[in-house]
């Protein structure tokens, strides 16, 4: 049972990573990256590493995601004004 769960989690990690790189729209890529970060938190929990899970959620997904989204917003606005 846990094996199947791990496998599914691993596959969804890989899928979200793949989509992050391959999806044509940048905003979707960033959202997918944040999802990837949250899945990573889960994986860390499965690896009995709650400290990393917390850090990944807060920093990896949260802060990095916020930075990326903010950057995307600026690019969008610049393009709008240009």
């Amino acid at each position, binding site marked *: 049972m846990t094996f199947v769960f791990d496998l599914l989690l691993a596959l969804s990690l890989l899928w979200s990573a793949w989509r992050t790189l391959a999806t044509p729209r940048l905003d979707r890529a960033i959202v997918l990256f944040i999802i990837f970060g949250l899945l990573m938190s889960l994986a860390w929990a499965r690896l009995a*590493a709650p*400290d990393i*899970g*917390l850090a990944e959620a*807060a*920093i990896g997904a949260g*802060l990095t995601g916020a930075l990326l989204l*903010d950057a995307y917003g*600026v690019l969008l606005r610049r393009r709008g004004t240009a």
Partner: protein
Amino acid sequence: MKRYSLVVLVLSLASAFVFFLGRAMLELGPTAIDLRAPVAAHLAESGVTHPVTAVLLNYRGYDTLLEIAVLLLALLAILAVVGEAPASPTRAAHPVLQALGRLAVPLMVVVAVYLLWAGAFRPGGAFQAGAVLAAAAVLLHLVGLLPGWSKPRLGLRFGLAAGFALFLAVAAGLLTQGSLLQYPPAAAGVLILLIESGLTVSLALILAGLFLLLSREAEA
């Protein structure tokens, strides 16, 4: 055409790499060294009861010292790259959002303090606490209660560097014990909490700074 063959080349190299790496990982026997035993054995002297925190701030505290340096350095490099720009005017968000923000931020501060304190014996610690505080600052910024940074003034610079400076000073001061970061077992707990408190504040400022510095030229 050239691009296509490059893609094929890189992807096949990557696949081959994964294949061989996976096989080699499977061949692995038990390791010669097992650090779990010494980690557990010295836990009592480390000043904390949570093993990860013990590794992070005591056994391998030197790594963490340098890591904080990296973080401070990144902020510094960003400052150097973006140069001076006027702070973006705060866009006042909807009053309801602002009210929510005012409500959420004290809660987040409480959570951060809890995480900091909990780090000694369970998951948590300065990083997580700092991240939560930073998130609070970002939240305040987003609802228009905290302006972006134009140029960190003396007080702010002091705050950004204080955690690292404190860590550095403790590390150096412990040279009197025989070597860098050699905590006396009796005082280890207090010292680590001291360092973590300092780090929480500075980490929060730095992490928030990464966001606030970058977002300020949004309107520029």
